[in-house]
C-alpha cells in the first residue's frame, strides 16, 4: 500500500491533532483531516491503519481516550488526555542520565532492550543536559532474561492475574500444567525464577523459567490476588534447591578438582574429634581435605561423581552413599559396548 507520508509522521500528526482538539475527533474527521490517513484507499483500509496506530500509541504510553457524544448517538470520538500523558515531575542530572544510559544497555534480550531504551529516550527529555558515562567508569554488565516466558509473566504480575503453563519437574522429569499466582521474577543462583503461589498445591513455590514447557497464559480476572508483605523470594528459591546448606568433606588429590577448591571454605576453629579423624584419613592416602558447601544432595553427588577418583567423599554419609551409587551406575556403562545402543540406527 503506497503512502506518501511515512508512518512516524502520520503517528506524530495524529498525536498533535488529538492533543489539540477542543473536544474530540471522530474517525471521519481523522480520516479527512489528519495527514497520512487520506492515503487510505478505502474505509476498511483506513480502519485497519487507524486501529494499528491507536494500539501503537497506547503501547507507547500515550493515553487515547474514547469520548462518546450523547448528541451524536453512538458516534465515537477520540482525544489524548494530557494529564494522563505526562511523566511525574522529575528532573535528572547529567550524572544520573549517564547511569541510565549504562543501565539501558543491560539487557541482551531484544524486547527488554527495546523497553529499556525507550524508557531512556523518555527520560532524556527531563535531563538537565547530556550525561557522561564516565560517571560510572565501567562498561555496563549484561544479562539475558529468561526467554520467551519473561514478558507474559511480567505483564501478569503487573495485572495481578493468574497464569497457567506446562512445567517439567527437575527431579522426576514429569511434565504437568501448573496454575500460579505470579508475584515476582527473580534472577538468582544462575537462573531466572518465577516466585508465586501454586494454586493446586496451595503454597508458595519457585519455578525455573527454563523448565516451562509452554508459554505462560493469563487466566481469570485481573487484580485477583495480592503479594504477601513478608515475601522472601530468596528463601523460596533456596528451598527449591534443596533446603539448608551442608558441608561436604572431601579427600582430594593434590592439584586436582580446582573448581571444588574454589568453593571450599576454611575449617572452622576448634576441630572436633570427627574433623581430626577425617584429616587423618585424607593424610594417610596423600590427599587434601576440603570442605565444600552444598544444598541439594542430588546435584552435589552428580558433580562429585564426575571427578572420579580425584575427589572422594568422607562425609556426610548420605552424600557418600549417593556418590557411590552413581559410580556404580557409571561402572555399569561398560555394558553399552556389548549391546546395540537403542536409537543408534540413522534410518
Amino acid at each position, binding site marked *: 500500500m503506497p503512502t506518501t507520508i511515512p508512518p512516524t509522521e502520520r503517528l506524530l500528526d495524529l498525536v498533535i491533532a488529538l492533543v489539540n482538539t477542543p473536544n474530540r475527533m471522530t474517525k471521519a474527521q481523522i480520516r479527512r483531516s489528519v495527514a497520512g490517513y487520506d492515503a487510505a484507499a478505502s474505509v476498511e483500509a483506513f480502519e485497519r491503519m487507524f486501529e494499528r496506530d491507536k494500539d501503537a500509541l497506547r503501547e507507547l504510553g500515550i493515553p487515547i481516550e474514547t469520548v462518546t457524544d450523547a448528541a451524536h448517538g453512538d458516534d465515537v470520538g477520540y482525544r489524548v488526555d494530557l494529564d494522563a500523558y505526562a511523566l511525574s515531575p522529575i528532573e535528572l542530572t547529567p550524572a544520573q542520565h549517564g547511569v541510565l544510559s549504562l543501565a539501558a544497555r543491560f539487557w541482551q534480550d531484544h524486547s527488554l532492550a527495546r523497553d529499556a531504551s525507550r524508557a531512556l529516550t523518555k527520560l532524556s527529555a527531563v535531563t538537565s543536559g547530556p550525561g557522561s558515562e564516565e560517571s560510572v567508569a565501567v562498561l555496563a554488565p549484561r544479562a539475558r532474561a529468561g526467554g520467551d516466558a519473561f514478558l507474559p509473566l511480567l505483564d501478569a504480575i503487573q495485572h495481578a492475574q493468574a497464569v497457567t503453563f506446562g512445567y517439567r519437574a527437575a527431579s522426576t522429569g514429569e511434565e504437568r500444567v501448573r496454575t500460579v499466582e505470579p508475584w515476582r521474577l527473580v534472577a538468582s543462583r544462575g537462573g531466572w525464577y518465577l516466585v508465586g503461589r501454586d494454586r493446586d498445591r496451595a503454597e508458595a513455590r519457585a519455578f525455573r523459567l527454563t523448565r516451562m514447557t509452554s508459554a505462560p497464559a493469563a487466566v481469570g480476572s485481573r487484580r485477583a490476588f495480592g503479594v504477601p508483605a513478608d515475601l522472601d523470594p530468596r528463601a523460596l528459591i533456596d528451598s527449591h534447591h534443596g533446603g539448608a546448606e551442608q558441608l561436604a568433606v572431601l579427600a582430594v588429590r593434590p592439584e586436582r578438582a580446582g573448581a571444588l577448591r574454589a568453593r571450599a571454605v576454611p575449617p572452622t576453629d576448634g576441630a572436633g574429634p570427627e574433623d581430626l579423624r577425617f584429616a587423618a584419613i585424607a593424610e594417610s592416602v596423600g590427599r587434601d581435605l576440603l570442605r565444600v558447601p552444598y544444598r541439594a544432595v542430588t546435584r552435589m553427588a552428580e558433580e562429585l561423581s564426575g571427578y572420579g577418583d580425584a575427589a572422594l567423599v568422607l562425609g556426610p554419609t548420605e552424600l557418600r552413599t549417593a556418590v*557411590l551409587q552413581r559410580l556404580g551406575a557409571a561402572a555399569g556403562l561398560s555394558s553399552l559396548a556389548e549391546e546395540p545402543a537403542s536409537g543408534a540406527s540413522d534410518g
Partner: protein
Amino acid sequence: MAERAPDRLVRLLGIVAFLNRHESVPVAELATTFGVSARQILEDVDTLWVSGTPGYQHSDLIDFDAEAHDRGVVRLTESRGLTRPLRLGTREGVALIAALRALRDLLGSALPIEQAEVVDSTLEALTAAVGDASGAVDVHLATDGRPDVQAAVQSALVSGHRLRLEYVNAADVTSGRDVDPIRLVTGDAHTYLQAWCLRARDERLFRLDRVLSADVLEELVEPHPVPAEPGSEVFRPEASAEQVHITLSARARWVAEQVPVDAVQELPDGDFRISLRVADGTWLRHLIAQVAADVRAVEPVQYALDVAETAERALAAYGALPPA
C-alpha cells in the same frame, strides 16, 4: 536495520519536551542527550518542522528558529501543545529499574561513594516515577564465585586495572592468566567475566565460580578490539568439534537445559536424545559420569567406556580408604 516508527516517535516527542525546557540547544548536545547522530537529530527536526494540527498551514505547524538552525542550534518557537514529557510504561520502567539494581549489585561496594550515590539517587527517582510495579522484577546476580574474587573483579572493573586470575577450566586444568576485564555477563546459568586474555590475545569468558583467585595488578587495562555485544555463540564450542549423541531418560532433563546442545529429540517414555559438539573430551566424560544412571546410549560409545573405567578406579580408591 531501519528504526521502528514507534521508537522514532518517542524520540521526536522527547526532543520537543526537552526543547520546551531548554532555550537554545546545539545539535551536538541534542545528539548526545538522545544517543543518536547529529545527522539523525537534523532529520528529526526536519520531520517535526512539517508536523502540526490539521490544516497544516504555517501557523498550524511546530516551528523552530530558522536563523539559529543555520548556526547548528535548535530553538523551538512553537510546540503545538506537546509540552509535557511522556510518561513511562510500566514495563519500560521495570526494565530500567531492574537493570539499575543489577548494576548496583554487580559492582557492589567497589564503586566510589559519589558514584554509588548517583546510582542510588537515580534508582530512587525512577522508582518514584514508576510506582508500585517497580518491585516486580528482582535481579540478584552476583551470587557466583568467592567473595574475595568478586571483590577483586569488581574493583578492577571500576578502577580499570588488569587482573591476574588463577582459573580452572571445564577439563579441570588450572592455569594463570593476566586479563583486562571488560564486563560481567550473566548467562542463563552462570555469571561470567568477559575479559581480554593477554595469553590468548583474544576475548574470553571466565566463569566466575571457576576463578580460584584474582589479584588486581598495578597495570591499567589497555584498549583492545572488543565486540560491543558478547554474542551467545561465545557460550558454544566451535562448530568444528566432534559431534556426539547421548540418549537419556527423563530424569536427566536438566542436561538439555544447562548444556549447550545443538538439538534435542524427544523419544517415547520421556527419553530424549541430545546432539552436541564437543571440543573437550574431559568435559564430556564429566557430564556422562554425572548422569550415568540415566544414560541409555552414547555415540561414539568409547566415551561411555572411558567413564566406566574411571568409575571403577574411583570405586577402588574408595575401597582403599581406611575405615572412618
